[in-house]
């Protein structure tokens, strides 16, 4: 039987989705009432009154709720999901604003009506009086702290945190060369095509709550809603339907709407649904990326970094429900594939009167890669060295693995790289892009009056973080294999890759395997989908569960055949003595035999009933055994496993218009063995597109009053096909991880991480002056040229 692991097979998800038979959140609950929200039009204001009288005679109105209607734990602030000792001033919002609003879009009133049109009619007829307060917008304003976001948070500082390894100050002071750089990245956002949404049904007879939500963590939502509504966990089911993209934003939970909709459904005894619209998604979900960094670096004549000191300021928005994950990731993953000598990093996480900041694909790594790669480019320019050579000289080498950075990673565990071969990766990338022949290409273009630049950027990504995932694999008496894991899917193809793993481990055809994700009814212990962890953690759990089911199948079949278990094999769903087709027992039959019966439910089941025979000297289910042909296992990784990669881009910048055109985009990626190369490449494609977006197009254009000026797809420049590279050239390196049974590493986020870094490198190379703030538009570049005069175009920056 051909191994499925490693095969670029087509996805099992697709047929349903291509026929329009997907079931996304808003495709469900046609009988549900609709919720709409009155949201704050002010970035910062005191609520002085709410008048709902105008809405009371709107057709179809069912209920209006304000903060006054909330009680018990629902009236308390939403949970701070990831506490940290350094997060001394953690603040989270209320489900509905109590007396103050802290960003445009914050929910103030919930309306429930017969449909969304009518709910919006009622919402528009509600009048809220506000006393505007000064808005704190942007990192500069937050740092200046002339005004405060939260009156009880001095200087707008949520947290300050330092990590260090060695003495960076001393190392820098003793270095032959030193540079200082200021580097900035603006806000962007995950922006899935489907916004948030939640549907809830309270069963008045069984008194149980069922929630469907477009989330990256069904178990997280379940625990949070049960706690908020004072329900037993066992009385709450959370089901993740098809999800139209997540990219990080849907890991946040519970959203205000995610607790209010179930609460209203329970109160009203009727199903209630909220479907976020695009405008709401811009102002009421979450953003990321906005950070300012100051770097001091000391290095020797060869460009080796001896000491690195990074100070940065992180804009966490109005509240900080997701804790310090993003800045912690920046401060650790900034190091990439390099050993910096001594290192010190300090960050300040600041409140602003803007939408909350939580992980967006890459989660702090794009900023970190931008900082580190810009720094190495600056060193190369300072010393007149090749940029690739400077990187090579700073690489951690394969013989230094596992490599301990002496820092603590985002999972609270030591930052120890488990595997990787960075020098080999660079060799592949240089070859792929033609690094060494680029000067000739540039000269040729220049002769035609064209301006070319090349950039490269490297990254390391800690993937597959714990604490754990689990899986259940059961062989039904039909021979079909049902697999369940608790984490959720948002288009990654988990049903395909997990089925590939099970097919191999259990020895069954792919077509017999069906995978369920994100449904607490099917598997209720799980963490969620983030940090490129699904394949690594759930994939490993699924492999272990399938191995357990396989062992049991062999044991049961061996007993039936009076053969030795070690002589058995499972091929294409049939258990047999190795090489002896005459002994074959279908797995479905083994499943029947595994479950001693009193009552036959069909012809096949008769074989397992009490008068069908068996050893009368032992109990029907032996001590330590359980009925059924199944396996249920968990995988809890010791630490994260570190994927890595390098990107190169060749750009052309228009000498007159400053338009930036992508000529080639090359990727070398190492996520260990590929379960499904086609799916991994798809992840890279999507990541690269988001990297291009963050480098050249997307920003959150807040004005000084905290109004988001580009809160629509007309104005927020999400790339169409015309903005992405026409062809992405990909090569793989496969260094296996020692930390999980499949040797794999995550691949979901990698494509986006070096985006800002690689474009800044290439544009700097084309223009001859350093680019220090991203994203960069043609107007930005034009302005930089005006301010600097003509560039040298000598390729040294």
């Amino acid at each position, binding site marked *: 039987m051909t191994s499925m692991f490693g095969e670029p097979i*087509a*996805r099992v*998800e*697709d*047929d349903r*989705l*291509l*026929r*329009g*038979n*997907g*079931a*996304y959140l*808003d*495709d469900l609950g*046609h009988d549900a009432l609709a919720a709409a929200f009155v949201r704050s039009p002010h970035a910062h204001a005191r609520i002085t009154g709410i008048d709902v009288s105008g809405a009371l*005679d*709107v*057709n179809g109105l069912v209920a209006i709720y304000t903060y006054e209607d909330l009680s018990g734990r629902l009236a308390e602030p939403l949970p701070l999901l990831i506490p940290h000792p350094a997060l001394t001033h953690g603040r989270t919002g209320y489900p509905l604003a109590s007396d103050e609003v802290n960003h445009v879009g914050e929910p103030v009133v919930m309306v429930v009506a017969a*449909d969304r*049109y009518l709910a919006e009619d009622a919402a528009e007829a509600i009048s809220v009086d506000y006393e505007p307060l000064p808005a704190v917008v942007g990192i500069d304003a937050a740092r200046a702290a002339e005004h405060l976001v939260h009156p009880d948070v001095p200087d707008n500082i949520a947290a300050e945190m330092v990590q260090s390894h060695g003495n960076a100050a001393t190392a820098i002071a003793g270095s032959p060369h030193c540079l200082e750089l200021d580097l900035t990245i603006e806000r962007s956002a995950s*922006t*899935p*095509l*489907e916004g948030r949404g939640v549907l809830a049904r309270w069963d008045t007879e069984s008194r149980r709550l069922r929630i469907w939500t477009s989330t990256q963590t069904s178990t997280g939502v379940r625990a949070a809603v049960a706690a908020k509504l004072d329900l037993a966990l066992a009385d709450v089911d959370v089901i993740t339907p*098809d*999800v*139209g*993209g997540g*990219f990080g934003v849907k890991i946040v939970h519970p959203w205000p709407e995610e607790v209010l909709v179930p609460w209203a459904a329970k109160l009203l005894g009727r199903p209630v649904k909220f479907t976020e*619209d*695009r405008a709401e998604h811009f102002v009421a979900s979450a953003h990321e990326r906005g950070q300012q960094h100051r770097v001091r670096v000391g290095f020797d004549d060869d460009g080796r970094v001896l000491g690195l000191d990074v100070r940065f300021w992180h804009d966490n928005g109005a509240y900080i429900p997701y804790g310090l994950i993003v800045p912690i990731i920046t401060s650790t993953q900034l190091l990439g594939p390099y050993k910096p000598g001594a290192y010190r990093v300090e960050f300040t996480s600041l409140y602003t009167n803007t939408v909350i900041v939580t992980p967006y694909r890459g989660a702090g790594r794009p900023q970190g890669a931008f900082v580190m790669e810009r720094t190495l480019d600056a060193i190369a320019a300072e010393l007149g060295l090749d940029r690739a050579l400077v990187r090579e000289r700073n690489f951690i080498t394969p013989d230094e693995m596992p490599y301990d950075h002496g820092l603590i990673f985002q999972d609270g565990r030591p930052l120890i790289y488990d595997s990787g071969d960075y020098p080999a990766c660079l060799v592949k990338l240089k070859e792929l892009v033609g690094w060494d022949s680029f000067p000739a290409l540039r000269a040729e273009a220049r002769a035609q009056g064209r301006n070319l630049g090349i950039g490269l950027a490297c990254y390391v990504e800690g993937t597959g973080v714990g604490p754990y995932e689990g899986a259940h694999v059961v062989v039904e008496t039909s021979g079909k294999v049902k697999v369940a894991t608790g984490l959720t899917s*948002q*288009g*990654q*193809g988990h049903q395909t890759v997990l089925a590939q793993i099970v097919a191999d481990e259990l020895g069954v055809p792919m077509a017999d395997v069906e995978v369920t994700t994100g449904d607490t009814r099917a598997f209720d212990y799980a963490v969620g989908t983030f940090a490129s962890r699904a394949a690594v953690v759930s994939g490993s759990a699924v492999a272990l569960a399938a191995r357990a089911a396989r062992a049991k199948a062999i044991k049961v079949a061996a007993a039936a055949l009076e053969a030795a278990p070690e002589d058995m094999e499972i091929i294409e769903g049939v258990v047999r003595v190795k090489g002896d087709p005459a002994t074959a027992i279908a797995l479905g039959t083994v499943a029947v035999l595994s479950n001693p019966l009193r009552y036959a439910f069909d012809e096949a089941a008769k074989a397992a009933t009490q008068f069908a025979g068996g050893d009368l000297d032992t109990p029907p289910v032996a001590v330590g055994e359980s009925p059924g042909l199944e396996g249920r296992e968990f995988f809890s990784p010791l630490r994260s496993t570190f994927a890595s990669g390098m990107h190169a881009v060749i750009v052309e910048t228009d000498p007159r218009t400053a338009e930036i055109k992508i000529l080639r985009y090359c990727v070398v990626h190492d996520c260990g063995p590929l379960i499904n190369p*086609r*799916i991994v*490449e*798809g992840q890279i*494609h*999507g*990541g*690269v*597109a*988001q990297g291009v977006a963050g480098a050249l197009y997307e920003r959150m254009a807040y004005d000084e009053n905290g109004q988001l000026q580009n809160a*629509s*797809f*007309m104005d927020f420049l*999400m790339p*169409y*096909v*015309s903005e*992405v590279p*026409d*062809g*992405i050239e990909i090569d793989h390196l496969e260094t296996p991880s020692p930390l999980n049974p499949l040797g794999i590493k995550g691949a979901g986020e990698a*494509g986006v991480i070096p985006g800002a870094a690689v474009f800044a490198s290439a544009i700097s190379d084309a223009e001859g002056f350093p680019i220090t703030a991203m994203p960069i538009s043609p107007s930005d570049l034009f302005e930089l040229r005006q301010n600097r005069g003509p560039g040298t175009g000598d390729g040294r920056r």
Partner: protein
Amino acid sequence: MAEEELFDVTLVINGVTHTVAVPARRLLSDCLRHDLRLTGTHVGCEHGVCGACTILADGVAVRSCLMLAVSADGAAITTVEGLASPDGALSPVQQAFADCHGLQCGFCTPGFLTTITAALAGNPDPTHDEAREIIGGNLCRCTGYQNIVKAVLRAAELQRTAAPGDGVAPGNGG
């Protein structure tokens, strides 16, 4: 407040005639999804930029979030549910997406499928650049468009090799 006035609208959707009473302001996208429960058509922005809600009205690709249901009265409409042939075989465009891994989360996919179906009816043999042009008005956040471009070319190839009458023409009512 007075109840909203309702208007009877007759739509021939995927070959089946539906009559539905809707308020004047009801978007065609909402009418399809919520009144007729044809939820294959998705809504990504409600301002005509993302293209997820694209349907074919009398064979022409239209953004159903920018059209009122009442103004579609009498139109022959093809939604994603009507693209496969009556025997259940995927259309060339649908098959090409499966062959080329042209979708991930699948949310934008129905709009791409209808858009490409209409475009290939007019240009059955697009060049690579024309393939990019065909999908140039639809947003996808997952795929980086690489495999969607491939799927356009693959669909054209499948369509050319398919026998006439295999359910490849748009708006044929499936």
